[in-house]
């Protein structure tokens, strides 16, 4: 270089322009670069025009800071569904239904490559929300957006609620012209765990799709201290804890019932039902004063261990007879002791004729091994009954239908309980909707898909 040439100066380093609130002078942080339309001064609650180099004041609102405290502070970064996001905006909105105000929080998340995403929180229920990439198709309903359903990407969402939402608190920056007092008509359609929402502001309608998230997932994603607020009640798109389609449970029950029926028919056909003893004995009161007990002939039970049915028939009328039975294995000395009563009463009174009891009785003695057996019988009878002939039948290997009845009930009870749980859950969900349960006809049929 020649001596007369001025030295080259190093180019100036790019510096971020310091932004300050034109109202109170507090520092303003812009996190989403040039995409913010409005930014809120956290100090004086002025809504500023982020596109204006001088940050023109658009609105100022008054609210106690202590009244609204975001669970996720602005500037918090976290990984949501595999993508890093930063919380850049927060707003509280509310609806008023029958004089009751319901408020919820919305968090605006930003990623420079993925854009914006939202989190909503109501009573400890969270939703991960993004703008729909395709316009949903409305089906049915008397008016567009009221009643009926919406179809989005092949999934049918049932109308849940249409309400007027008002924004009453904002903080941070927003890619739209946010205002406190902003009024929008919000319509929700649900297909748990997703919710499809349309938000009508003036003539502009924005559709968003949300998916239910548990507070613990949010806390883990943003590494927040402490525990998430406990979820209260059932939220509109909260997945049912009975994460099973109730219809599939009943289909399974029907299949089991048919299988049980087939099992019963199969065992009934396979059972030997082999008569091994058929005797008629005479009970005589005068004889009973001596030793009343006696033994039957020996009979043989063959094959595998199975049951034995002992049937008694006595033509009693307004009397009873009681038989102390013992089925005794002649070889091993093993015995099965049981007593059976046969009684039958009848008469006539002001209500008409009546009967009580039966002239026959049956008992199934369980799991009798093969071998040689006999019955020891010790009869007792009504003192007014002088004598009676009674018949004893012993049948080897009989089906016990009570087992199938118990199995049927055992299969039925869980299906009923699951249905009841799903019903009560759906009832709680829809009781908060524009379609309370009394109008709900397909409540249990619209449970969530099986997980």
């Amino acid at each position, binding site marked *: 270089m020649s001596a007369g040439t001025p030295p080259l100066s190093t180019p100036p380093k790019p510096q971020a322009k310091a932004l300050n609130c034109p109202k109170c002078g507090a520092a303003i942080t812009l996190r989403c670069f040039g995409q913010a339309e409005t930014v809120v001064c956290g100090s004086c609650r002025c809504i500023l025009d982020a596109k204006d180099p001088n940050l023109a004041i658009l609105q100022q609102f008054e609210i106690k800071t202590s009244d609204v405290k975001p669970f996720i502070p602005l500037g918090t970064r976290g990984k949501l569904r595999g993508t890093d996001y930063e919380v850049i905006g927060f707003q509280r909105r509310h609806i008023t239904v029958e004089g009751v105000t319901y408020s919820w929080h919305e968090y605006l998340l930003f990623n420079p490559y993925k854009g914006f995403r939202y989190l909503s929180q109501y009573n400890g229920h969270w939703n991960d929300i993004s703008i729909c990439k395709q316009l949903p198709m409305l089906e049915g309903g008397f008016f567009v957006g009221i009643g009926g359903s919406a179809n989005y990407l092949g999934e049918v969402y049932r109308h849940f609620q249409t309400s007027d939402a008002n924004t009453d608190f904002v903080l941070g920056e927003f890619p739209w012209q946010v205002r406190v007092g902003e009024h929008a008509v919000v319509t929700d359609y649900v297909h748990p765990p997703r919710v499809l929402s349309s938000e009508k502001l003036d003539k502009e309608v924005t559709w968003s799709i949300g998916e239910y998230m548990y507070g613990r997932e949010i806390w883990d994603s943003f590494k927040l201290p402490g525990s998430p607020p406990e979820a209260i009640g059932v939220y509109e798109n909260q997945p049912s804890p009975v994460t*099973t389609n109730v219809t599939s449970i009943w289909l399974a029950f029907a299949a089991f019932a048919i299988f049980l029926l087939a099992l019963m028919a199969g065992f009934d056909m396979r059972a030997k039902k082999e008569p091994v003893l058929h005797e008629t004995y005479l009970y005589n009161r005068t004889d009973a004063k001596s030793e009343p007990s006696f033994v039957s002939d020996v009979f043989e039970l063959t094959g595998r261990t*199975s*049951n034995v049915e002992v049937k008694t028939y006595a033509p009693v009328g307004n009397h009873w007879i*009681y038989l102390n039975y013992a089925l005794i294995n002649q070889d091993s000395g093993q015995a099965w002791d*049981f007593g059976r009563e046969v009684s039958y009463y009848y008469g006539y009174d002001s209500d008409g004729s009546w009967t009580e009891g039966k002239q026959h009785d049956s008992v199934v003695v369980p799991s009798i091994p093969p071998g040689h057996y006999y019955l020891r019988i010790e009869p007792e009878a009504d003192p007014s009954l002088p004598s009676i002939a009674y018949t004893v039948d012993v049948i080897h290997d009989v089906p016990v239908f009570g087992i199938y009845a118990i*199995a049927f009930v055992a299969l039925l009870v869980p299906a009923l309980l699951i249905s009841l749980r799903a019903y009560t859950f759906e009832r709680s969900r829809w009781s908060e909707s524009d379609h309370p349960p009394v109008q709900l006809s397909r409540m249990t049929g619209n449970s969530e898909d099986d997980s």
Partner: protein
Amino acid sequence: MFRKIYLLFGFFTLGTAAFAQYRGWSLDTVNQLKNVPKSVRDNPGSYRSVYVGYHHYTGGK
């Protein structure tokens, strides 16, 4: 999850029912005894049932 549990429970129930039927289970209650003396066959009075003295119903309507 509930469906899987229910399916498992259903198969277990059917299996138990089939096993119970195969093994000759019963819903009736009997008292099982061992080593009843062989003399019972010749002298039935040497054994007394535990059900002797049962209180019988003598009513009617």
